[in-house]
């Protein structure tokens, strides 16, 4: 059993089962929508977790990549009549190219300097989006053309639940494969000690750049998906606060854990919906819950609980 679970297919399978199982427990479209939002956030968080949890690099500008993906499916079909899927693909390519270009100089920085550089980069993208009103609709946002596949108009929260769930499973599968590959081992090595990794013959700069580009593409795809689901985009998805939200999801769920990414995303998306009944105290309670989690489960929800269970079993 233990060996079966540690297979690289285990995590994507668990997520796939979860997506299928939860679909039986959905009372209305609203629940489908919240779940779809969890899947989308989780996808972006898995990407960021590859960078933060495995390679040990911080990015405070990931919402910028998210925004590029979102605005690609909004702007390209509206301006050039491209199919939304083509637009999403182009968005992902543009994000990858941009991440490659800025990643080279930025990833030479370490710690706080890296954080500030990515922060500045993210803010630049957010500013561009809200200032170029002729193209992006400015701070008020712009509508996104509905997705049509082979003449079938994709709509309804339940449909999107399956699409986003599928994307999440694919994303988790790719991430698990990446982690189990030589690149993944190289990443963990440089996380522990860059010097040691370099001595062991790892091209540190290249490994970092690879994972930075991959995680940016995750964010871009998640952004495109969200824009298509909502049918409307606003610049706030590209701004600094959203970057922070993504980082919080990574840390809360557990660094270096794909399932943790899902847990972190689920908590931060679902809790505000649960807490609406508390009105004025909503933010206080949300903050309190997050603090308690971080104090009690220091390594993040999933890794901490896993360690706990592991300890119990040994007794």
């Amino acid at each position, binding site marked *: 059993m*233990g060996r079966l679970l540690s297979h690289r297919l285990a995590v994507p399978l668990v997520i796939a089962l979860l997506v299928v199982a939860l679909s039986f427990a959905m009372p209305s479209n609203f629940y489908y929508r919240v779940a779809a939002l969890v899947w989308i956030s989780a996808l972006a968080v898995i990407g960021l977790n590859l960078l933060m949890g495995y390679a040990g690099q911080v990015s405070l500008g990931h919402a910028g990549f998210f925004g590029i993906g979102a605005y690609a499916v909004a702007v390209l079909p509206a301006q050039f009549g491209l199919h939304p899927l083509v637009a999403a693909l182009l968005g992902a390519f543009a994000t990858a190219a941009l991440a490659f270009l800025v990643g080279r100089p930025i990833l030479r920085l370490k710690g706080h300097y890296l954080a500030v550089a990515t922060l500045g980069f993210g803010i630049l993208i957010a500013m561009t989006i809200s200032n170029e009103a002729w193209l992006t609709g400015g701070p*008020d946002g712009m509508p996104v053309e509905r997705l049509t596949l082979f003449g079938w108009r994709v709509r309804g929260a339940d449909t999107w639940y399956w699409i986003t769930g599928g994307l999440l499973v694919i994303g988790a599968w790719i991430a698990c494969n990446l*982690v189990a590959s030589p690149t993944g081992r190289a990443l963990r090595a440089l996380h522990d000690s860059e010097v040691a990794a370099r001595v062991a013959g790892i091209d540190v700069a290249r490994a970092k750049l690879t994972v930075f580009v991959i995680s940016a593409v995750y964010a871009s795809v998640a952004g495109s998906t969200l824009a298509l689901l909502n049918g409307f985009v*606003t610049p706030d998805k590209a701004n600094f606060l959203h970057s922070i939200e993504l980082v919080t999801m990574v840390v809360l769920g557990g660094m270096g854990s794909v*399932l943790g990414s899902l847990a972190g995303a689920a*908590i931060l998306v679902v809790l505000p919906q649960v807490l609406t009944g508390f009105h004025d105290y909503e933010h206080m309670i949300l903050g309190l819950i997050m603090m308690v989690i971080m104090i009690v489960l220091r390594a993040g*929800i999933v*890794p901490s609980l896993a360690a706990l269970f592991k300890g119990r079993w040994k007794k």
Partner: protein
Amino acid sequence: MAVFGKCIRGAALLAGVAMVWAAPAAADTIKIGAPLSVTGPASFLGDPEARTLQMYVEKLNAEGGVNGKQLELIVYDDSADANKARTFATRLVEDDQVVAVVGGSTTGTTMAMIPVFEEAGIPFISLAGAVVIIDPVKEFTFKTPHTDRMACEKIFADMQTQGIARIGMISGTGGFDKSMREQCLEVVGNYGIEIVADETYGPSDSDMTPQLTNIKNAAGLQAVVNPGFGQGPAIVTRNYKQLGIDVPLYQSHGVASKSFIDLAGDAAEGVRLPASALLVAEKLPDDDPQKAVVVEYKTTYEEKTGQPVSTFGGHAYDGLMILVEAMQRAGSEDPKAIRDEIEKTSGFMGTAGVVNMSPDDHMGLDLTAFRMLEIRGGDWTLVE
């Protein structure tokens, strides 16, 4: 990878979390949804709106409710996040099953929610400003605040009566400023006015002297308009005085609050701006048909909350009252019937002005909604 495998338990926990929240029980009340930006960057809109709605729903219920039923107001805070707003819109339709919605503090959140309500056939009265909300007309979408375009028209009409034909324009690069600037550029030609200088400033700039100098040097300048919001217009007003520009300065409804006069100080003397009647409630002449409504709302709000009244809360008051009157006329809680009656609203006197809706006009306000004010002696005065 071993750690990963054990995480299957994490998944079980997650499934538990996702199933925890349950739907509230239904009762024999009329449910009205209110997704508002109570916190976050637009809380100056959402907070007075939420207070106003809660206050008046309480009051209506104490008076026996609507059509013999109590109103139930469901307020959600979207913190000006369009994505959250859309989720709450879905929740209001699917889960809470509201019959109508009064909300949407910002244009972004409103535009994100419109498709949800249009698809579900739920009447939606938005409290946001931009003209795109109702132009083109959408079947179930209405709005109560006047548009930026009307503010421009009011300013230009006032200029026209004074024989002003060549003006300078200075505006910020923020959302409100940009939208209003565009609207002004669109309608300025209708008033035979030419813009001879058009300058912009950043939202956090602390000195606009260079831009104003450019405007000052434009030949034949007769007036300057500043479609702006926030602290920018106060700085423009100060710099304007410092540079000794002696043609009239027009500000927009975006600065129609006491804090603008405080920030701009003496420089604000003689500045003109279009604003809601609410701002000068007590100063309106007694025979003004709007006086009773605005004075009543102003005193109720200020007594209940202990805070100065804002025009944004007034928009919420208008939205709720238009809805309540429509429900009374319809005599039912059927969303379609309510929608039809909202569209037939005519002669409704709100804090924003007289509302006459029609199938082509889902806002129903005209230029009388705005009052032209001038700042004299550190206070607003009516100039009409």
